[in-house]
């Protein structure tokens, strides 16, 4: 009997409108923990090779971890996964809020969603009652609007995950939204939901989480909360949340500004964490069992328009604020609201909008393509382009494919400043003078995302010009950090508040009864990392080293202003970083795991499936 797991998987086919409930295999729990681990294993096993990411054979996963919903610090996380429409490879994205815990309370660790519905629907789960209900009246509505409508219909105790019109329109930067401001933003996961005509997932559960030793979990939970309360960051970090880091990122010259053309925004103080708190904050809003709520629920007014919106958190400040050069926090928050309602990831959204504005400035796209002139620093331009993209109107239909595909269609040198890796737009750190952070973006399984290895702090700590040791650090982080995404815990107690990683084996063991150390947990991290690499090799025909490079702006252009003025990494340095990274990983110089490495990780069959043996 597993402890900390609901013990069941809900397997739904939207095409036939049938579902089954099956037991969670103990081996899956032991070898892959949960969350991101379940997604990784299940996508590899359940998706037919070569499946169209937006076709009926793609599989959408929603997976909690053993800590999700349990009395422990910041144990809210749930992972969504699918073959990514943005990259064509492995895709996942997680969110906090309260829907992961609710899923566990309803009695499911994971939902597997297959097929495609003929007409708009939503998945209704109330403990053992599961129904595929009509959502025709919700189709075309915004994400916030849909959540509000479903809460009114079903009751506040239902937790809702939904898409906006961007997901419906198969926009490849569409997100899944929840709890009026939490998003599984990345990898175009919202478009997968849209392709299945699945407008929402509504969950209500009353069963709790099965635990072998609840008294022990209560005791460990109390001790861990006390340890977190005692950290200075508990009181110092929380008031500004993630946006509090805006100042530091500018001071080190790594703030994405003007479509990543520079690393410093003049006047960033007007859009930082302090500005959020002092000018627009309504409420500190937290996820399940969060003692350090980073959610800065806000109310903003811009030119007579007003909106309630959660955030802007740091990534949104960076990509909508810095990258589109908005100069007031109210404007950043308003554009954040527009993208949230449309159901666009604010990271990729900010990247796509900034790319479009730069294309317009350079004459690559015209006023008639866009329907109006656009410029950096103008909130109306941002809102206008976001709407074109979400509705696929005019040039928005091209931009909706993401900057990689858009630049390939538009040409004229735009590939150089299409800021992505593997088709996923770069998140909030300008990496030309932070080699470890750059390598983390280059080698991340889902594309240029910061959450696998937030290595920028290591660059600054040990010397940003230095290359030695950077590949090893990135690999270490890529194994450790995703473990938190597997067990269902938020990374902020560790990353932001200094709650030591050493707490986690004790926490995980108290809940599951397993006997993990960081050594065994990291080994699972490595297995998942290699399995995802295999998935990319299987699904992307010419996948290999060439998919691990950043756009040329990174290695050809000096940073023109700010503290890192005059700096940029060279292509030779990038080659050296990749060589070292592959060597340390036991991969070939073309970036493919060697058969002996996969065998050592227990992935022999996968090696065969990918033609590597």
């Amino acid at each position, binding site marked *: 009997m597993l402890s900390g797991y609901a013990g069941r998987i809900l397997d739904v086919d939207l095409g036939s409108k049938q579902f089954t409930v099956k037991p969670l295999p103990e081996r899956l729990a032991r070898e892959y923990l949960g969350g991101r681990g379940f997604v990784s294993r299940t996508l590899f096993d359940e998706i037919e090779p070569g499946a169209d990411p937006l076709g009926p054979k793609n599989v959408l996963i929603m997976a909690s971890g053993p800590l999700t919903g349990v*009395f422990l610090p910041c144990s809210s996380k749930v992972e969504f996964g699918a073959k990514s429409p943005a990259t064509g490879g492995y895709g996942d994205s997680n969110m906090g809020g309260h829907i992961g815990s609710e899923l566990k309370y309803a009695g499911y660790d994971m939902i597997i969603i297959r097929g495609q519905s003929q007409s708009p629907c939503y998945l209704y789960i109330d403990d053992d009652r599961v129904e595929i209900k009509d959502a025709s009246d919700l189709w075309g509505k915004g994400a916030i609007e849909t959540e509000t409508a479903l809460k009114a219909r079903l009751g506040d105790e239902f937790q809702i995950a939904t898409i906006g019109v961007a997901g419906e329109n198969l926009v490849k930067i569409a997100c899944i939204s929840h709890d009026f401001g939490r998003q599984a933003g990345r990898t175009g996961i919202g478009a997968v939901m849209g392709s299945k005509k699945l407008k929402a997932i509504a969950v209500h559960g009353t069963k709790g989480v099965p635990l072998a030793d609840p008294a022990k*979990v209560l005791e460990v*939970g109390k001790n861990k909360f006390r340890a977190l309360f005692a950290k200075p960051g508990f009181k110092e970090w929380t008031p500004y949340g993630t946006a509090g880091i805006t100042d530091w990122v500018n001071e080190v010259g790594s703030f994405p500004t003007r479509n990543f053309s520079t690393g410093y925004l003049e006047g960033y103080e007007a859009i930082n964490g302090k500005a959020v708190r002092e000018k627009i904050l309504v409420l500190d809003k*937290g996820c399940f*069992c969060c*003692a350090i709520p980073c959610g800065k629920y806000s109310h903003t007014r811009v030119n007579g328009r007003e909106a*309630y919106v959660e955030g802007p958190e740091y990534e949104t400040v960076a990509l909508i604020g810095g990258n589109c050069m908005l100069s007031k926090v109210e404007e950043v928050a308003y554009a954040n609201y527009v993208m949230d309602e449309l159901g666009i990831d604010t990271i990729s959204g900010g990247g796509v909008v900034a790319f479009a504005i730069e294309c317009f400035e350079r004459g690559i796209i015209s006023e008639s393509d866009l329907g109006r002139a656009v410029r950096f620093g103008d909130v109306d331009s941002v809102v206008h382009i976001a709407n074109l993209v979400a509705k696929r109107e005019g040039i928005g239909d091209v931009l909706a494919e993401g900057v990689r595909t858009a630049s390939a269609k538009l040409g004229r040198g735009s590939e150089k400043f299409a800021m992505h890796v593997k088709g996923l737009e770069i998140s909030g750190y300008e990496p030309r003078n932070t080699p470890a952070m750059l390598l983390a973006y280059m080698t991340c399984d889902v594309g240029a995302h910061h959450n696998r290895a937030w290595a920028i702090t290591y660059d600054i700590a040990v010397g940003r010009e230095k290359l030695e040791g950077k590949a090893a650090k990135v690999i270490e982080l890529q194994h450790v950090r995703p473990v938190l995404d597997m067990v269902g815990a938020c990374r902020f107690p560790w990353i932001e508040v200094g709650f030591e990683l050493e707490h986690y084996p004790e926490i995980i063991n108290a809940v599951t009864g397993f006997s993990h150390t960081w050594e065994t947990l990291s080994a699972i991290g490595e297995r998942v990392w290699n399995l995802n690499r295999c998935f990319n090799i299987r699904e992307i025909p010419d996948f290999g080293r060439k998919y691990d490079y950043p756009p040329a702006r990174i290695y050809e252009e000096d940073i023109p202003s700010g503290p890192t003025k005059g700096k940029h990494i060279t292509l030779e340095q990038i080659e050296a970083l990749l060589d070292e990274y592959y060597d340390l990983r036991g991969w070939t110089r073309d970036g493919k795991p060697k058969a002996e490495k996969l065998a050592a990780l227990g992935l022999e069959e996968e090696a065969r499936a990918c033609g590597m043996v």
Partner: protein
Amino acid sequence: MKLGVKDELCSGCKICQTICSLTLFDVCNPKRSALKIVGHFPAPGRYEVVTCDQCGDCAEVCPVEAIKLENGVYKIDRDECTGCGACVDACPKGAMILWRGDDVPIKCTLCGACMEFCPRGALYDADKPSEQAGVA
């Protein structure tokens, strides 16, 4: 000890409900706890914390006198409770909680666990307001 509530500080995290269920019932299940949190979103953007203030209206309406006052706290004797629901209807704060798995309502025993671990100071001991743990 007196359970004080400041709704405006609540971040909606449900630590209170979760620790309540573990303390009262030895289960990890916020739905089986003696308080609840209601969200009001997107506007005006706040949480409402529904708690018992030991007013005793529940005891007054109980037809079998299953709710008894002990040291300033009203407690349900589950052996005597018939599950009629009169107390649930009578509670002016909606703080007699019904959980799907049981006929007997759940009522606050003023154990203090929620106020000790509320990280926001939204729940606190109104007799000792200076000792609240929260950051806010």
